[in-house]
């Protein structure tokens, strides 16, 4: 196995991005395309090669740490610039570069009309680099670095249309919430340094069972999970992701669906050795995932903006992964991460074709009947909807069922979470079919389409097609009671994983088919069977609907409880405290001295008598002082 390959894969997108950024003028578009897509595609090929190489190794030799230079030696802590090359990171590399290549290719066409073509690809390239750094890092420090840099890339790309104030605000929000996560991870790293004296994965995991007290390991894992929650949009740090849809659609597909937002899952899996020592934290992770997946699913039911529907569905799907990871089903979590990358990217890209075709229109209220105009998008979206809903045979079916089956087997908590997950699966089917039906089915909106929905060219269609195939059949690599390639592949990292029992598989299979059918049926009943029913129902559930539309009002609460008080405090300090108190101290001292000077000036009245008097008084008081001192 050649570790240098990993370095090359890591470096290529950075090189491409840097070249694009440093190019003195806007380079020709053809060159931008090559420099944008080329490194990622090449990276995918090299990752595949690395994968093939790794297949040839025995499972013990599949864990490699490749050091380049000593980054810092401070106190007794040494940190290297090093990559961890193992099945988990290779899997992530393949997903990132694979899905990434497709989305990059798609973007060459999607962004064709944009002024900042070069900037788009430079920032996307930077994102891929950061994401690769995140998954390849061999220690917590570079994990945090990668963690923050993907946040930065996300910030840049959400705010890609920086003239639009909503985009700018959304970018800021995403950044700030991610900083909260970063801080939590940093504090977690402090505990590791203080307790174990190292940040290297291998050393930490080796020393943790003996070196960390129960409290410390719970603290570390909870803190790391706060980071994961911020990045993966888990409740209560989820509010930024829907807003992040202000970014261009390919960005949403790559960063806010397929890769970056799943980093939290990766983190939990990567540090599972710690979570296994921390039952409380693991339960917290699982419960958070369950709460998130349910809340997000309910919110997704009423969203009008197509991309927001997808965003909430992303939050919900990551909730499944997190729940699985919290319950110890790491293989299932990673499996769902992969299939989700396929079908969610597919959904975004196909919806992107719609948006592109409608010149930026995103509201469901102004869509409908598009199936006639955009057949490919229709078919692709339908495949995506089937996959995410978990229709048997599609990729989502296998991965989601594995999660639920694992939950069934994971004790009382697992059973409870199973119920939530199964319920949410039905809701998922409902809102995804709602999306499908309201977009492509039914009548066209009043007044028709201002622009003629135009078809897309091959750079957009080919990735969609490839992803559609993957979404349909990508699940077959891990079939219950059949084979489990993902779990086997990851075994060197996550250890042997118990396979869900027959009962769990059976119950889950039945339940999920049932809820999907119900969910899809209800969607059909409301949105397709009778066009008027939707508005009638909307009127009946107005209050609930508003609550859901507002996402359970997290945003206003944060605004009123945290942001505004801080802002008011700042204003008070700036407007009142600083001038009155801080500046007042000096003013007071100066006016004291000045007052003294005025008094002395008044005493100097030019009269000899006064002078003589002062002199005599001076003599007397000196004498008194001396007498007092001597007699004391």
């Amino acid at each position: 196995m050649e570790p240098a390959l990993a370095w090359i894969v890591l470096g290529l997108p950075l090189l491409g991005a840097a070249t694009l950024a440093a190019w003195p003028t806007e380079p020709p578009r053809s060159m931008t395309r090559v420099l944008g897509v080329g490194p990622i595609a090449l990276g995918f090929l090299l990752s595949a090669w690395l994968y093939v190489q790794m297949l040839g190794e025995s499972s013990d030799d599949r864990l490699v740490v490749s050091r380049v230079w000593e980054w810092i030696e401070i106190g007794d802590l040494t940190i290297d610039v090093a990559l961890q090359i193992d099945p988990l990171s290779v899997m992530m590399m393949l997903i990132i570069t694979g899905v990434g290549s497709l989305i990059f290719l798609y973007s060459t066409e999607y962004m064709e009309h944009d002024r900042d073509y070069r900037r788009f690809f430079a920032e996307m390239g930077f994102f891929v680099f950061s994401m690769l750094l995140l998954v390849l890092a061999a220690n917590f420090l570079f994990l945090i670095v990668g963690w923050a840099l993907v946040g930065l890339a996300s910030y840049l790309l959400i705010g890609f249309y920086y003239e639009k104030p909503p985009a700018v605000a959304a970018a800021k929000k995403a950044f700030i919430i991610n900083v909260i996560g970063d801080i939590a991870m940093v504090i977690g790293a402090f505990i590791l340094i203080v307790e174990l004296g190292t940040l290297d994965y291998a050393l930490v995991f080796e020393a943790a069972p003996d070196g960390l007290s129960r409290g410390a390991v719970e603290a570390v894992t909870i803190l790391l999970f706060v980071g994961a929650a911020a990045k993966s949009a888990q409740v209560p740090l989820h509010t930024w992701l829907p807003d992040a849809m202000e970014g261009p659609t390919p960005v949403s597909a790559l960063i806010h669906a397929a890769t970056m937002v799943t980093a939290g899952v990766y983190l939990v899996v990567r540090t599972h050795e710690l979570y296994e020592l921390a039952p409380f934290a693991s339960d917290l992770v699982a419960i958070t995932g369950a709460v998130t997946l349910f809340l997000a699913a309910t919110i997704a039911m009423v969203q009008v903006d197509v991309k927001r529907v997808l965003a909430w569905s992303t939050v919900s799907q990551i909730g499944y992964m997190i729940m699985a990871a919290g319950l110890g089903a790491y293989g299932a979590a990673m499996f769902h991460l992969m299939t989700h990358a396929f079908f969610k990217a597919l959904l975004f890209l196909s919806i992107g074709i719609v948006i592109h075709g409608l010149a930026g229109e995103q509201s469901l209220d102004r869509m409908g009947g598009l199936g006639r105009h955009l057949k490919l998008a229709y078919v692709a979206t339908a495949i995506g909807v089937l996959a995410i809903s978990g229709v048997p045979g599609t990729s989502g079916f296998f991965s989601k069922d594995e999660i639920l089956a694992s939950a069934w087997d994971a004790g009382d908590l697992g059973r409870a979470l199973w119920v939530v997950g199964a319920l949410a699966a039905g809701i998922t089917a409902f809102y995804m079919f709602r999306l499908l039906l309201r977009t492509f089915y039914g009548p066209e909106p009043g007044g028709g389409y201002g622009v003629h929905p135009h078809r897309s060219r091959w750079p957009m269609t080919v990735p969609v097609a490839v992803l559609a195939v993957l979404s349909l059949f990508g699940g077959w690599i891990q079939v219950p009671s059949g084979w489990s390639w993902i779990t086997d592949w990851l075994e060197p990292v996550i250890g042997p994983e118990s396979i869900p029992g027959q009962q769990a598989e059976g119950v889950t299979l039945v339940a999920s088919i049932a809820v999907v059918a119900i969910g899809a049926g209800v969607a059909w009943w409301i949105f397709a069977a009778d066009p008027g029913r939707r508005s009638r129902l909307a009127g009946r559930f107005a209050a609930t609907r508003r609550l859901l539309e507002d996402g359970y009002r997290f945003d206003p609460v944060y605004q009123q409880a945290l942001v505004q008080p801080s802002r008011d405090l700042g204003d008070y300090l700036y407007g009142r405290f600083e001038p009155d108190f801080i500046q007042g101290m000096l003013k007071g001292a100066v006016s004291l001295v000045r007052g003294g000077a005025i008094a002395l000036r008044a005493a100097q009245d030019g009269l000899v008598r006064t002078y003589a008097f002062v002199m005599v008084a001076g003599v007397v008081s000196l004498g008194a002082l001396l007498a007092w001192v001597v007699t004391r």
Partner: protein
Amino acid sequence: MPMVTAIILLPLAAALALAIPGTSRPQARMTALLAAGLTLAMVISLTVRLDRDAAGLQFVDRHSWVSEAGLQWAVGVDGISIWLLLLTAGIFMLALIATAWRPPEREVGFLAAMLAGEASLLGLFAAADLVIFYVFWEAMLVPFFFLIAIWGGEGRGPATIKFIIYTMVGSVPMLVAILATAFVAQDITGQFTFDISELRGVSFSEAESTWLFAGFVLAFAIKLPIWPFHGWLPDAYRAAPLIVTAVLAAVMSKAGVYGLIRVGVPTFPDGAANFAIVLSVLALIGIVYGSLMAWRAPTMRMLVAYSSLAHLGFIVLGIMAFDIQAGQGAVLQMVNHGLVVAAAFVIVGLINRGTAGDHIDRIGGIASGAPRLAAVFLIVALAALAIPGSNSFVGEFFILTGVFRHHLWLAVLATIGILLAAVYMLRLYQTAMNGPAFGANARAIELRTLDYVVLSPLLAAMLAIALWPAGIVGSTRAPVAKAVAPAQVAAERPTDQIEAPVVPNPPPRALPLPGDEPEVAEVSP
């Protein structure tokens, strides 16, 4: 050749040469750039030749000045001060280039004052003797007084006065403390000296140590500044010409922290230990306070000024933690803050090129007309908010690591500052750069060739530190370990954290007689 002395005297000599009436502008520019360049070259050569593993001062240069009073000229560098010298020489070089490219009125005088300022700062960072330290501490005021008073903007009069009064209020008790230190030490060891390395390890009683430390710390607290002694800062930063503000923030603000780690903590460990929590809490308040102020500040300068208050709070936290990692992080962070804040002020200057004032809310959307500037601005803003992967992150991370080890809640609360840094830096960046364009002539703001000359060294240095912090941190380990070891003992830290040996009371030695060269004794552990 006494390199360190030459480094200090060269800019001073150049400043005096410029002060000769009748110097023409081109001559002055050449002289200034040449002197600053040569100084920088000499500092670089020192950096290269420095023994990175040694704890004591190197390249020490000692001459008796007034031997009757124990006064001497003693300068030298170690693994801590070398980076501050490098920062000073580098930032001043860039400042002089920037001056030459947008010359102020009475340029010759300006250049002379800048060079004098450089010399005094270099002298301060190289001082190996308390009196020399004090001399440069005060001498620094003169050039900056003139720089603000003559070339300053609106409100320069009160700002200068405030600046001077505040600084003097701190430094004058320091003078008394310096004297008291020498006399008290004489009672203990029998030798009368102001030599910093000889005063280290004098076993002052706890009360003496506390009082003497108090005498010093006020000066440091004001110079830093630590909340609530920062009253001079906003006015001075507002009124000074931008280049001077940049230098003030980038270099001069390091004087206070440097004093803490060079003099305060190692010489008065018991006092430092008694004050550790007080100072740390004040620093913490400063972090939060400065961040909130920066968030609400109306102008870019004020924002950067108050952000400095917050950033320096981190450095103080690091030093007062008496932890090797935190100390090393603090030293690194001194350099980082210098680089970042200098770059930030360069950008403020560039934005001022296309706008009337520097009110943040009155400009917007510059990015569309000046994309390259926006990109650079973003990099600087991110470094300022210490995003992981940036140079500042390294410093803050290790500072807080060390603080966390000893004062868990201080470290946790200090992270509020990190969060708020993101808030105010993004406010600055986004308000000015993003949104619809208005209020500024973006074309005038966009980077030009000469701007790159100033900015790229700063950015390159930031990148270099981010990629290889060991370059700086490596040389600081031994000196920091030596500096904090006595305080660690005083704070009753576990012995496995104390790296450097603590030698009590250096052997008594008679007052050197006139003409009697004191032997150069650098005790290295």
